[in-house]
């Protein structure tokens, strides 16, 4: 289901690069974050919404989920809660273009690993992925 470019990414990163699922209904964000993740040495797996991800979540070898909040159908927070039930160990990073204290609190209370306000820069993204996956990279 994922429009995965993971096959290509093996060319640029280690064969066992962690798979980062990127869930956003905006194709421009999907492709930009995939490209950024690849440049950081991850294997991105883009999904256009919560439903496609849930279908693929069990067999795609996903190491971490980065999801937008406002999406048609299930929201990022819905996805977060469902994943907490089905895959309690799968870390989820929540991002939004409409950040607020209330939504940050809700996301963190629901078990999000981190809350990113769009636009965020590569260092934030890298730090976030690195700490969630227990990878310490050179400063």
């Amino acid at each position, binding site marked *: 289901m994922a429009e995965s470019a993971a096959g290509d990414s093996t060319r640029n990163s280690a064969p066992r690069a962690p798979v980062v699922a990127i869930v956003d209904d905006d194709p421009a964000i999907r*492709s*930009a974050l995939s490209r950024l993740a690849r*440049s950081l040495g991850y294997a991105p797996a883009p999904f256009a919404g919560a439903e496609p991800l849930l279908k693929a979540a069990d067999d795609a070898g996903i190491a971490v989920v980065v999801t937008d909040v406002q999406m048609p159908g299930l929201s990022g927070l819905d996805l977060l809660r469902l994943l907490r039930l089905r895959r309690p160990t799968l870390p989820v990073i929540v991002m939004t*273009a409409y950040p607020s204290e209330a939504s940050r609190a809700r996301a963190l209370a629901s078990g999000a690993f981190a809350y990113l306000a*769009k*636009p965020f820069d590569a260092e934030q993204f890298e730090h976030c992925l690195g700490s969630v996956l227990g990878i310490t990279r050179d400063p």
Partner: protein
Amino acid sequence: MLSRQTLSRQVFSRWPSRASASAHDGPIGSDDLPAWMLAAPTSPRRAWAAAVGTAALLILPPLGLAGLAGWAAAAGGGASAAVLIGLALVAGGAALTLAARQAQRHRISETRLAAIFERSGISMWREDWTAAGEAVMALRRAGTVDIESHFASRPEALRALRRQVIVTDVNGFTVEETGASGKEAFLGPLDRLLPDTDQTFVQWLVAFGRGDRFFRSEAHVVRADGSEVDMLFTAMLPRDLAGFSEIVVTALDVTAFKQAQQRFALADTALARASRITTVGALSASIAHEVNSPLAAILANAQAAARWLRRPVPEIGEASAALDDVVTEATRARDVIARTRSYLGNAPRASAAVDLLQAARDANLLVEGELRLHRAAVHIAAEGDIPWIDADAIGLQQVFVNLLLNAAQAMAEGDGPRDVTVTIRATGDAVAVDVSDTGPGIAPERRARIFEPFHSTKAGGMGMGLAICRNLIDAHGGDIWADAAPGGGAAFHFTLPVAGPAHG
């Protein structure tokens, strides 16, 4: 919103009622002076002559008879002389009785009048407006037709005249109602009772100058104990100059009505403001979302491109694809802004024929409380006839509201008089408006920047007031700018084309 304005105009009019002004539809020329200015003066000599006439009527018959008696006695007609003396005595007695009765009747009517004045259940004031009447008469005779404009540019002359209006008596009810220690609390110059922010005094002069038969206006009055009340004043206006020495004014305390009205207005304004803030909040959130998304893509693509290029073996293909997306997303962000602007710019604007003078007065009424709080006295005047312009009435009212509040706030620190003068005049195919104050003024180097959004000098101010003014005036095809008032304060000027904004 509309209903409140209508209510405040009809029920608690600050301006002379239509009824009193209706006799003068159309502009008044300098030739047709009001009737009271043309009425023959009742001079003291004439009053004396009238009194002498009455006395003569009473005295002459007995005197004549006595004279006849004397003549008859001299002529030797003793009997006829005695009859005539008798008649003279009778006539004299009758004259005395008549005079006594008349005096008594006069006393009774005086007593009754005094009783009506004293015991009426409404506050009544006797006021001497002679100086004001004479001043208005002199102005009208000298050819000044627009009394309001004349005094708008001479606030000091207006204050001086106000000091010459003397309250000579108030009735018992006035003392009872206000809980004053006695009549003395009210007697003396009217100036003492009207706060400096009063805008009604000049309307009396306007009514005199126009020859209104009666006057009605609502004024804010300072009581002897310093408390402030709203009063509705009504008076029949004199028919000649002599009548100005005693104008009887009735006053109704409308403070409670006003307070209820103000609470309603406040709730209404708070509601409007809340809904405006909600709208602006929702709008800015949606703009933020629309712009943050392409920005997020731009940032991610640009940083990915940089990383591909900085590799020991640069990945030109990846970097180039990322940069293409940067361009695409930057274009998207630009389109979001353009779309938002055109959406807001095309919001339907209510356009109708607008009377700018009325718009200024409505705005003045809307923010009256706040202006009074800052102790600002507002003078509004039109020079000559002002053509109605095709415009958005609410928008222009907003321009006046912002400029009036701005002026009042600018003067809040000073010690001198706090006058805001609004002058409206026609200039060919446009209408020009000046709003000047007696505050500290605006430094020349700041004048261009004050119209920029978020440019605020006030603590807690958003700095949007003047930016909104400029937007609204722009939308009407007009200009707005600021310079110095003759007295050193700030002066704001704007012009609006009479035909409305040019389309296309």
